[in-house]
């Protein structure tokens, strides 16, 4: 019957088995379950799938556990009110159960209402749902003595509300918080990335700047930069398309390294352009998270902490010094 401790024990074991099953299913289906995904229930219901059976069962098993725990806790509370006293052990139990119930409620609410989204911020304003606009105005990277990254300090300008500007520094483990912490923008990764290539005319020394997915007119044709490859290659290179006025098109690769002669030049009709330098721009990969149940979880944590403190009994035989009894 609901409120029975044995039933509660069994429900809890059932939840444990269910969670273990879920872990196994998620590990076996990497294409369905991305690594590092949030509590949002959307993944499991949009659309519903057979493979998510463990989750639907988990909702049911936690519901049973929650109801039984609530019944037990109410019974315990009523007994304490009737007796007009409560032992430390019982109080600790009550607080832990209260913490558990609030945590379950918080997770349910967060799963239904929570949102998350990744954004890539540059020096141009990006609209961030729930916050306003944001852009990256400065980036400093700190390094360890061996050159590995220690931290990134990203200066981000936010336009919130009625064009109210505020600047915050984001770094690892140091997010920007809004709406009493329920909205958060946290730094996932900050670095510089190629934003364009600067070419120099060998004859006139004129410089041309070209950005990815854009074109410039050079002499008797059009030069288009399709992309810049820097990761996973020994020498970074730019991938171009040269289209003459006669309609001929040619693919061209340009080594973005001055030591790679003669591959660091493009011969375009009667013009020869050399690689001068790369243009970098700082960018920030950020995670927006909306968690409306944050403060429910805070209360749950406080209740649990209080319960923990009551579990530290002051009886002498509970101290380590009392363990030196011979057997």
């Amino acid at each position, binding site marked *: 019957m609901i409120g029975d401790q044995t039933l509660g024990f069994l429900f809890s074991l059932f939840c444990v088995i269910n*969670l273990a099953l879920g*872990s196994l299913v998620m590990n076996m289906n990497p294409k369905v379950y991305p690594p590092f995904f949030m509590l949002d229930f959307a993944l499991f219901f949009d659309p519903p799938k057979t493979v998510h059976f463990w989750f639907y069962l988990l909702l049911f098993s936690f519901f049973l556990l929650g109801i039984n725990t609530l019944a037990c806790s109410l019974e315990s509370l009523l007994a304490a009110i009737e007796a007009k006293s409560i032992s430390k052990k019982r109080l600790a139990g009550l607080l*832990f159960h209260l913490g*558990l119930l609030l945590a379950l409620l918080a997770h349910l609410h967060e799963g239904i209402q929570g949102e998350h989204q990744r954004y890539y911020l540059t020096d141009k304003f990006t609209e961030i749902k729930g916050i306003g606009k944001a852009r990256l105005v400065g980036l400093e990277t700190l390094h360890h003595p061996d050159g*590995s990254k220690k931290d990134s300090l990203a200066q981000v300008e936010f336009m919130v509300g009625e064009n109210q500007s505020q600047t915050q520094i984001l770094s690892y*483990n140091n997010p920007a918080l809004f709406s009493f912490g329920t909205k958060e923008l946290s730094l996932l990764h900050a670095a510089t990335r190629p934003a364009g290539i600067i070419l120099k005319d060998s004859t006139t020394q004129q410089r041309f700047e070209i950005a990815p997915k854009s074109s410039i007119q050079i002499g008797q044709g059009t030069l288009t930069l399709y992309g810049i490859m820097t990761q996973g290659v020994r020498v970074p290179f730019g991938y171009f398309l040269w289209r003459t006025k006669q309609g001929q098109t040619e693919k061209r690769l340009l080594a973005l390294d001055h030591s790679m002669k003669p591959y660091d030049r493009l011969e375009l009709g009667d013009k020869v352009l050399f690689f001068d330098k790369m243009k970098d721009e700082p960018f920030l990969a950020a995670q927006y998270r909306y968690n409306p149940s944050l403060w429910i979880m805070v209360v749950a944590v406080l209740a649990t*902490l209080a319960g923990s403190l009551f579990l530290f009994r002051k009886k002498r*035989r509970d101290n380590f010094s009392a363990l030196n*009894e011979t057997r």
Partner: protein
Amino acid sequence: MVYELKLAGKIAVFFALWIPFAAALLHTFRKTDWVRPLFWVSGVLFVFFFATRAYHKSFFPFTDKVESFTTFSALMLVLGYLYLQKLGRKEFFIFVLLASLFGTVCFVFDDPLKYPTPYLLTIWYPLHVPLSFLAYAFWFVAGVASFSVLIFKKDPTLAGHDKSFLVRSNRHGFNAFTFSMIFGGIWGYLAWGAYFLWDPKLLWSVILWLYYGNLLHIDNLPRLRKWREPLYLVGIVLILITFIGTGFFTRSIHKF
């Protein structure tokens, strides 16, 4: 100098792990006077090892798998020392042997000393990790005591195997793990906006918390009391899955 210090640390931790085993052997042969002094020697060697790691990394020394296994072993040995009179000779020997074996695994792994990644450079990390290992160690105590009841057929009413010993071990472990989860949740919230993710390590942490929290009630349930020792033993398997399984065999962000 870096290499010499690292080597000195490795030699120190090797002896730190196996001197207690020698002490446990002596204890088995009733030469108990030697046990505590040898444990103190081991403790000093552990401190030296962790100090060399902290010096190299300019941070708390539990940020890679070598340090994780060694920290867990060290905490198990601390509990072994504290529970010396509570555990029987066989249980003490098994417990210390397990602790020594766990730590010795660190000699199997490749051990390039690297600075911690940016996400680890927060106070919440050293608050979170050692507490979880301490919880595992307390639960291992309960598991070994239960093993003794089941396998060696020890009378569970003897001091050291009675309900209060198991309950206390579980309670201390549960408390430590509760704090560990809270600190980990705060860290997760600051790091990526979530105190919970569908990540294997986090999922199995919830499993452990629910499981051992549940076991706190078993002595109030007459129909289930006979399952107490087997369930504490199953708990060891769950700990191994949480600590080692998720760290090596899953896609967890907590992968070693």
